[in-house]
């Protein structure tokens, strides 16, 4: 079944013009460090929802960053995996941020965060089955049509499984890509966290991930806990340096994918700029490692 409704010209746009280098999630506490040191960072990424006010310092800072660096905008509020109708007011706000800053990429999550009119401020999980696939595809079509460009969809960090899932996460993502022409944001930490929490092999996940469609990678530090039976429970907390297991998995992903824009995300217990920048430098070393080039399919000739 082919349910594509997005116009050809939208599908033909490149999903990402981000450089194949290491970027950093922008935090306004780092603005003066960035301004003073003009660091050699591949790109910056911001959350769209923080730039939906009319004016003030957020826009002044982002205008300046946008002048000096490639920009990626990451949405956290479209609730693509939600069962209800997409929030059109919010989609309009996202569109106005995307139109204003013309970012090199726009990404969102395979998750939901809104119920009715209430925003829950977390990326909540959905079962992977025919019903949820239809919702996600319809929402992606609507978003891509509104924004006039393909977007990147990110794999979530998960803590439990739905009995009503009939697809694996990768099968589900592949199907969304096939039906909507979107591309993917591979969050390697989320893959690591989900694999540990659900007891599958992170290596197998990376080996099966549709790497040709990956236009960006996210790396972050997780927090460690245990559940009631003593099994490890990793939490995608964005609160620490990237752990060794995640770097190894990243290396494995790059071996299949080749160099691709990679973001260091650190949103809680935000470190001083030099520590964050050091994480990006480490990612850059992985990106520069000699590997056999992988032939990627150009965006516009996909069928």
């Amino acid at each position, binding site marked *: 079944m082919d349910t594509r409704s997005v116009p050809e010209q939208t599908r033909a746009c490149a999903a990402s013009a981000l450089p194949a280098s290491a970027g950093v999630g922008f935090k306004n506490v780092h603005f003066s460090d960035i301004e003073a040191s003009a660091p050699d960072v591949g790109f910056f990424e911001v959350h769209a929802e923080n730039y939906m006010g009319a004016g003030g*310092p957020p826009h002044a800072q982002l205008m300046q960053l946008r002048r000096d660096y490639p920009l990626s905008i990451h949405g956290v509020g479209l609730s693509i995996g939600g069962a209800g109708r997409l929030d059109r007011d919010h989609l309009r706000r996202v569109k106005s941020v995307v139109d204003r800053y013309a970012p090199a990429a726009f990404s969102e999550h395979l998750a939901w965060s809104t119920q009715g009119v209430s925003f829950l401020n977390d990326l909540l999980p959905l079962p992977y089955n025919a019903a949820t696939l239809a919702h996600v595809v319809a929402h992606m079509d609507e978003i891509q049509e509104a924004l006039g460009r393909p977007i990147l969809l990110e794999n979530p960090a998960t803590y439990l499984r739905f*009995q*009503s899932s009939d697809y694996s996460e990768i099968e589900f993502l592949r199907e969304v890509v096939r039906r909507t022409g979107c591309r993917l944001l591979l969050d390697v930490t989320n893959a690591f966290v989900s694999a540990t929490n659900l007891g599958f092999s992170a290596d197998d996940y990376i080996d099966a991930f549709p790497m040709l469609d990956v236009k960006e990678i996210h790396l972050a530090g997780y927090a460690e806990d245990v559940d009631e039976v003593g*099994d490890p429970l990793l939490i995608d907390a964005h609160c620490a340096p990237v752990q060794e297991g995640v770097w190894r998995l990243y290396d494995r992903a790059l071996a299949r994918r080749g160099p691709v824009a990679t973001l260091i995300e650190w949103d809680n217990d935000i470190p001083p700029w030099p520590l964050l920048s050091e994480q990006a430098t480490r990612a850059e070393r992985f990106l520069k490692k000699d590997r056999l080039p992988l032939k990627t399919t150009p965006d516009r000739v996909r069928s």
Partner: protein
Amino acid sequence: MTLSAEFDQGAFVRALLDPDLPAPDGLEARHGFAPERRFAVYRNNVCVGLIDALAERFPVCRQLVGDEFFRAMAHCYMREFLPRTPMLFEYGDGFATFVASFEPARELPYLPDVARLEYAIGQAYHAEDAAPAPIDVIRAIPPDQLADATAALHPSTHVISSKYPIVSIWRRHMSDEGLAPLELDHGEEALVVRPQLAVSVAALPTGGSAFVHALEDGRTFTQAVAAASGVAADFDLRGCLQELLLAEAFTAIRVSR
């Protein structure tokens, strides 16, 4: 499509917000064990995320009641009032009203007005940009022309009138000054403006907020003075204008010819 394929998001949310409810049906942890602890991660993310957002929004309120009390109060608020949009900087618009009716906070009667002030500061931060009118241009307007003039105020302008000295309370907790005892026997009217990138907070003379509201409604300066005098018979116009000019609260003065 089978019935089991339908996902009851509402039940998921109810369980998220009520820790006394079990995790929703249809979930399983690794190896099929009970999902409670795993589900609790989502519960915790939602609670902590929103409480943190309020703590960031209302830092002085948090200092006034202490972190533990603030988080407990914020938890009660978030269970009753979730954000209505994904823009977290708008969250907490009803927090001051909630605090006013929050029984355990009754001992601090000024807390709701401090919350109002802090919310206004956040609104000013994200408000539309506009160039303030040059102060010397305004100062050069002859008093007789000013009487019939109207004013455009900066879009970031907010005034909050309180029975308590909210500006002094706020300042004392924003700076590292020693916490000298504060007399609570007088009110203050706060002016919040963000003419360029920094938000400023000043105290207006009594009647100042009525004066500003009248100007915002398009009244002339003479009419605004009358409104302010209704609040304070000895309204200090000179002092009020001085504070508004210093704060760069005017974007234009329109003199009628």
